[in-house]
């Protein structure tokens, strides 16, 4: 094996993927390039749907398949954007399945960088800007984690002031 390339994992999700891909492109070194894996994991909506239908007694119906693009289209768009922004990147895509936070954490074992987006409260800076699954990944990933605001970050004025009883005040 020759000189190994930087390995970047991008967690592709609706709503944050463009900002994440753009951040990942910045991490691709000019010249040597990088291996970028775009990972999308669907949420458990299909399971919820099946359970809700099972709750209808006696109707004896088979759950209908959901006509979605199933992530393939989203991954293709992410790949196209990354290709435009970082021509040196060697891009692969993957659709995972299972508990999303575990799947992403497991994938981070083989990465140098993980890029993910804030999906929580985007109106102010603070811990609530990360949702539960993202929090899990940030806390458990072994690699460097880059956390991205999907649009312009809220102003620093949204950071609460020091509490009145803080001795450093």
């Amino acid at each position, binding site marked *: 094996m020759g000189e190994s390339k930087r390995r970047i994992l991008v967690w592709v*999700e*609706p*709503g*944050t*993927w463009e900002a994440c891909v753009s951040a990942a492109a910045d991490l691709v070194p000019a010249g040597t390039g990088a291996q970028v894996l775009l990972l999308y994991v669907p*949420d*458990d*909506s*299909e*399971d*919820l*749907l*099946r*359970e*809700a*239908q*099972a*709750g*209808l*007694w*006696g*109707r*004896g*119906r088979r759950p*209908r*398949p*959901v*006509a*979605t*693009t*199933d992530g393939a289209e*989203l991954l293709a768009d992410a790949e196209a954007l990354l290709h435009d922004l970082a021509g040196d990147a060697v891009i692969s895509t993957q659709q995972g399945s299972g508990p999303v936070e575990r799947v992403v954490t497991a994938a981070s074992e083989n990465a140098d960088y993980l890029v993910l987006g804030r*999906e*929580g*409260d*985007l*109106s102010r800076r603070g811990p*609530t*800007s990360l*949702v539960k699954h993202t929090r899990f990944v940030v806390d458990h990933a072994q690699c460097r984690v880059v956390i991205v605001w*999907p*649009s312009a970050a809220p102003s620093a004025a949204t950071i609460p002031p020091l509490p009145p009883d803080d001795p450093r005040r």
Partner: protein
Amino acid sequence: MLVVSGSLLILVLAFAVIRPRGLPEAIAAVPAAIIVVVVGALNGHEALSEIRQLLPVVLFLAAILVVGDLCEAAGVFRWAGEQMGRGSGGSGKRLLLLVFIAASVVTAVLSLDATVVLLTPVVLATARAVRVPAKPHMYASAHLANSASLLLPVSNLTNLLALHASGLSFGRFALLMVVPWLVVIGIEYFVMRWRFGSELTLRGRPVRTTSTRLPIFPAVVVGVMLVGFVVASSLGVEAAWVAGAAALVLAVRAVVRKEVTVRSLGGSLNIPFIAFVLGLGVVVMAVVQGGLGTFLSHLAPTGNGLVSLLLWAALAAVLANLVNNLPAVLLLLPLAAAVGPLAILAVLIGVNVGPNLTYVGSLATLLWRRIACDHDHEVAIGEFTILGLLTTPASLAAGVAALWVVGNLLGGT
């Protein structure tokens, strides 16, 4: 005798939840109904009169399910999905509002089954196409299938069962329930906007392509069917005939246009389901007559005051979670009917909104499924349950309060 019929009821309910080898629920319910008559827990005449009372209700549901399926085959739901996707303009908040409108209308007109089976998959596909987190919209659709089923007698099987017992006309029922319906939907909307505030701020993309036009014919047939319900009710004709006629008209056209086959129509018309509800009704009747009715009558509130109505709804919601909404309404109707129409409508608010505590219709079903079914695809129950705890008690209380106000304003009930 109560031990025999009670055990049989538990068996029928457990079978319906677990559905070993995917067998139809009727496999347990029909023999159980025969046994309660053979052992004398219920005499043959009473069993027959129960069946005669339930039959039009079940036939109605069978017909309306066919109407829903044919609307889907004609592209009504695809059209609704594209409208929601385009109308959202990529905004999660606007999509949620559109999902609320669609789910409320579909539930009220075509019954909760149509929302769960036909609309919710479209909502999921639309959220994915708009590229916003699907969860708030899925939860909204799942919740509204229950809580938006208050408006019309045809919105929920429980309503039709109650309509017979209440002596209300179709129009009167809707008049009494329209404000509770709006209040409950409003509470759901504000709780979801608050609870999913952050997920809903993420931007998606507008979906531009609208290739589908509103299928005019099925829309007109459904509209005529609604008017037909009101007219039929005033003439004393069963709603099942109207729904059956609508199903027939749509079916003939769909077969001619090769949108469906006669064979698939047979699948839509669900005979085992009819047998299941009839069998369940007979077994529940035996349990009520065997002593549970007397026991429940001690718990049952008297009078039409606000507190009584709230207690009725609470009792109904608890019972719906213990044994599911269908048996719950069958158990409570005879008692509530003795009090009056407002008590019956309060019971309906309880059995219709109460199931939102869980996504499978009752706590009992949830627990059974956790124990008995495959664990590969378990949904995380925490968030849905929290949402249920946030909306259900408030919806019950506010819905019943609205019913009480409307009932007193209109008088004569």
